[in-house]
């Protein structure tokens, strides 16, 4: 093929002029991302499902009052172990409590832990990751050192020890998990900061004399935000899994407060006789986690199509 030298005639000035004449601005990154996201059916279905589950959890008291008419803690011993019926959509548990409303309230707790964990650990992770990546040098070494340190702490044994000294409510649990678990996010954020730092517009901004703070807010954070959205999803999922594990070991949120974790473990005794007791919390967890994974994958693909596998 011949090598074309760009001249005024063969660059796409006409198209540009036409577009400008029509008054259509070029699309921003976010608009692009949004369009791509909504084209991805899996991501959208995941997102819708997750939204639906969160709304159900939030609306638990309303559902209790207006739809189900059973409280999660009111016992009905003679009617224990009933399979799903029109009256009890998910059946009753071993105390005769309505399993459907318990599953919803449990979702409240599990999702709250997930969100709080994601929020706190990302706050720490982003601040440290951006600071270290951007400023580099001694600060970066310090942050890396802290990351190595925190990663060297054995999480589960430490959680068990603290759990044996102090009773952990869901808030304390989520915060404790964040203090030990922010390092993964921080590493990714730092990596992204490093690469964004090299980009042309950042160099241009610095040449022009923009302050560090301005650069971080205007250029770094928006890019970081995209990866943060993805990490939030995985954080929520992993917090739910960890909480169920801790409930199993006896350190999670204590009964009678239902969480998907402790519902899952308490119901195992009855798996041969009353399998629905095991199925519903299990399905709840897997649906939530699947939905969140699909949503995160969709978001990631929308933000950076080059990452698509």
């Amino acid at each position, binding site marked *: 093929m011949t090598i074309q030298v760009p001249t005024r005639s063969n660059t796409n000035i006409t198209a540009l002029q036409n577009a400008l004449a029509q008054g259509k601005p070029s699309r921003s990154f976010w608009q692009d991302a949004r369009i791509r996201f909504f084209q991805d059916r899996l991501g959208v279905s995941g997102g819708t499902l997750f939204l639906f589950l969160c709304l159900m959890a939030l609306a638990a008291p309303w559902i209790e009052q207006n739809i189900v008419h059973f409280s999660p803690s009111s016992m009905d011993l003679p009617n224990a172990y009933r399979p799903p019926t029109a009256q009890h959509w998910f059946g009753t548990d071993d105390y005769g409590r309505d399993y459907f409303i318990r599953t919803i309230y449990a979702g409240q707790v599990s999702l709250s832990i997930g969100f709080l964990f994601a929020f706190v650990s990302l706050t720490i992770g982003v601040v440290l990751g951006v600071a270290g990546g951007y400023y580099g040098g001694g600060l970066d070494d310090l942050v890396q*050192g802290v990351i190595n340190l925190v990663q060297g702490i*054995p999480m589960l044994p430490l959680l068990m*020890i603290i759990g044996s*000294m102090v009773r952990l409510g869901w808030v304390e649990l989520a915060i404790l998990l964040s203090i030990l678990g922010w390092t993964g996010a921080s590493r990714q954020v730092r990596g992204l900061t490093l690469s964004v730092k090299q980009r042309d517009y950042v160099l241009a901004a610095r040449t022009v004399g923009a302050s560090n703070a301005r650069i971080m807010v205007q250029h770094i954070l928006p890019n970081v935000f995209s990866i943060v959205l993805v990490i939030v999803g995985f954080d929520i999922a992993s917090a739910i899994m960890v909480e169920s*594990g801790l409930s199993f070991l006896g350190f999670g949120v204590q009964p009678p407060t239902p969480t998907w974790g402790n519902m899952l473990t308490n119901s195992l005794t009855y798996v*041969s006789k009353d399998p629905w007791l095991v199925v519903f919390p299990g399905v709840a967890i*897997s649906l939530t986690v699947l939905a969140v994974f699909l949503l995160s994958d969709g978001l990631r693909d929308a933000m950076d199509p080059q990452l698509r*596998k």
Partner: protein
Amino acid sequence: MTRYLARRLLQTIPILLIITVIQFMLIRASPGGPLKAYLENPMTTVEHIKQMERQLGLDQPLPIQYLTWMLGNDWTLVDEDGDGVAETKGTTRGMLRGDFGYSYFTHLPALETILGRLPATVELSLAATLISYLIGIPLGVYAGLHRGGRIDNAVRFFTSTLNSVPHWWLGLIFIILIANLTLATGVQILPIGGRQTLGLEGFNPLDRLWHLILPAFLMGTGGWITFMRFMRSETLEVLGQDYVRTARAKGLSARVVTFRHILRNALLPVVTISGGLFVSLINGAAIYELVFSWPGMGRLVLEATLKKDFPISIGALAIFATIGVLGRLLADIAYGWVDPRIRYD
């Protein structure tokens, strides 16, 4: 290489130091403190307590206490009777020399108890890591080579679903399934738990292997899914590369070319992931050891925390951290050996 290693070794020291500080603070913060075992004894008088405080150096300022705890005080003189003159020898050997205290319940040395259970956990974690390689890598390569095919889609769907439930919970479901299956058919495909069959004497490798399969497989599930995904994307990337096309053009078999390139590219990241994987397996072993009645260190710490047997549970922190450090160091060594660039660093 040696300089690289030396640097990595030096980097491990601050972590271990911080862990010991955390341990020190935890022991002080635990209900009853380090003298809890003595407080329970109705025979102990206030004088006894004071004497022991002085003996263990607990009346000293905090930094000195920490040093005593780490280095012991049996090589120095302690003022045991409170008269202001240090004339008796101390009694603790200090953590650095292996004195982790004694279990509140069995009164055996804590370190010995912990180390006694260590091999079981390491065995399980190593087996899980091995399974992660053996299943994850071939599966991932195959899925990548046959992208879009039925097996690829099935595997991707199956692993996504598998990752959305806790794997240890699946273990319990399996146990119940196995029991019911055994009842129905009379054939027991896998044991319910334990490290070897109850009542069996001596070391029977087949029996031990049979007991290892299910716990190691479930523990390694996170691992082989990770490796599978990674190898799949590696394969896809390599397949799209120019040099593959070039090699094919030259007449080399596609299979051979891709395998060599895939494995070569994948080696470094796999090694990096492995270190972290093994360490996280060790730290998280407690749940699997509980489900499968596996006599490992994780379950020991679980029991100790439930019983509030602090010398064991807090002492185990140091062991876990040390293994973590060693594991990552080994991975780094392997990394350094495999990556020629590092060697000449």
